[in-house]
């Protein structure tokens, strides 16, 4: 009787400790999403049909998306994702665009009318300006996502190849 009581007490104690530990050391969110997000190029270009890299990472973690939907990541990105997720390496899906060298948006400041539409479209706040005043792109922050191109009413934004890293 005493033995059974002791055992029940121990069980209860262990259970309580485990419950505490699971509360204390709980992992917030899905750690796989973070790992996938780290591989993605963070251009936030939405070419994958998700509104950014993190949503795409979430979709991948839930098995809702294919690994070949990220053109800026290129073939190496697909390979890295395939390795992480244990999936087959497949070629990039051209429906989402083709892999190309990193680009940079440049605003033709003489043509810009200051409508602020591109500022609202930029996912990384890389465009500077105010209403009815000329806008300009912060070259260091631009990811080359091209999201500023469609909203521009005067087509004054151009994509140019970004110069590589200086040796």
């Amino acid at each position, binding site marked *: 009787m005493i033995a059974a009581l002791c055992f029940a007490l121990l069980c209860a104690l262990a259970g309580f400790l485990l419950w505490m530990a699971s509360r204390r050391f709980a992992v917030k969110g899905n750690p796989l999403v973070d790992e996938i*997000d780290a591989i*993605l*190029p*963070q*251009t*936030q270009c939405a070419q994958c049909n998700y509104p*950014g*890299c*993190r949503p795409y990472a979430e979709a991948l973690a839930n098995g809702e998306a294919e690994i070949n939907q990220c053109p800026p990541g290129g073939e190496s990105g697909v390979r890295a994702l395939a390795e992480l997720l244990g999936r087959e390496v497949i070629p990039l899906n051209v429906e989402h665009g083709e892999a190309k060298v990193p680009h940079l948006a440049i605003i033709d400041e003489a043509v810009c009318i200051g409508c602020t539409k591109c500022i609202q479209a930029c*996912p*990384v*706040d*890389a465009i500077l300006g105010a209403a009815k005043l000329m806008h300009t792109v912060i070259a260091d*922050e631009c*990811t080359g996502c091209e999201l500023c191109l469609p909203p521009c009413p005067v087509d004054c934004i151009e994509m140019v190849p970004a*110069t*590589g*890293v*200086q*040796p």
Partner: protein
Amino acid sequence: MKETSVFSGGVRLEPNKVATQLPTPQLPPQPLYAVPLNTRGGQFAEPRVQVGDAVLGGQLIAGARSKVGAHSPVSGLVKSVQTENNKACIVIEADGLQQKIPARPPVHPASVSIDDLREAGLTGMGGAGFPTADKLQAAGLNKPKMLLINAVECEPLISCDAQLIAEDAKTILFGADWLRQFSGAYHCQIVLEDHSVDSHKILTTALSDSDFDAISISTVPTRYPAGSERQLVHAITGTALLPGERPLDKGVLVQNIGTVHALGHWAQDGTPLTKRLVTVAGNACPTPQTLWCPIGTPVAALVEYVGATEKNVDLFQGGPVMGQPLSDATAAVSKHMQCLRIEIEAKKPEAIACIRCGDCAEACPEHLLPQQLHWQLQGDNLPGAQAERLPDCILCGCCDLVCPSLIPLSKQFAAGKSALRLRQHTELRAAKAKTRFDARELRLEEKERERQERMKKRKAGTAKTDKQKAVAEAMARARAKRAEKAGTSKGDKDE
């Protein structure tokens, strides 16, 4: 002679130096000079002249203050200004008058700022071409105790330092003591290789004729790559630099002897860096020699001057170990070109697979394992190569020299290093973009929440007044009814 300890690894190479001649040969004046605007370390000097401007020899034509200056080597007219990224240059058409900017009296180290040195256009002349002003700026923060003047030309053939010592030891000593005072170092050591006996003699004589007490001369054994900054510091101080540690962290400032000479010249009369010694050699060069070349001299003029008439030659910038092929036949002499090699390349036998003999690991002066790096890079495994300390590779090429399978290891490592740098750069950018994206999301969310709250409040506000209105209306109706009741009780029934 003071005997010094040796660094680890390295290879013994025959010096095969080009004999010095006095007076130093001078290249005849050229009609055109293309002064390069790029310096190592990603700096680009902004042009300060326009096409058609007349310039004097030694006049500042680009850069200055925040960027290393570039100066016209001759008097003449600016013919074109090219700012294209990798071959930015200013082309000067010489007028043949050789007019120069006026000389100024000598300056004291205490009255000179870092920006003055930057404007003088000084860069490291040993081959790396690092801006001298940037190095001295870092030195100013580190307070070096010792100044090492690097006259160790460990690569075979290259003989700029020996030629310079033979011609102008006085200016070298003046520049060395000037730089010692400028940097605040207590002591200055000029380091030579032990085979350069003549240079040692000339310097010792010049030093005994002068009154520079803080300068001494020492030698290191002839062993490649003793002239590399890290190996030189190891040989002189007796302790190796840790990975990532710079000589300045040990209180040692290392400067090339050519840089010190140029600095001495500038301190004496304000002459900026517009010419350098270049050793022209190679198996297709009939008259190997070291000669003065204005910066911007077309390489073709050098080839013609030494009488190399062979048609199918390959041109290399730098010595036989670390030299790089000059891809551009229209290239010009830059501030860091110590050697021009004109070679007829013998067909090299094909490289075969690595047999993992480990000779490269023994030769590596940085204690790396080249065979492992090779293994990782063959599989494009950059993180693996980084774990094997790829960024610490100094690209000296010792592993190439000893490899029995003739694998071009250092070439692979150079490509791997730049790929790794590019990758780190991309990762950094991605992290930055992510933070900005997250911050924006947060801000938009906050805005949306505020908007919702405002809407709710407004709704609540209107609802309250509606209720009040309803109550007031009801009360008014009740009052009217009561009044009607009191007035006509009959009509109540009718209705």
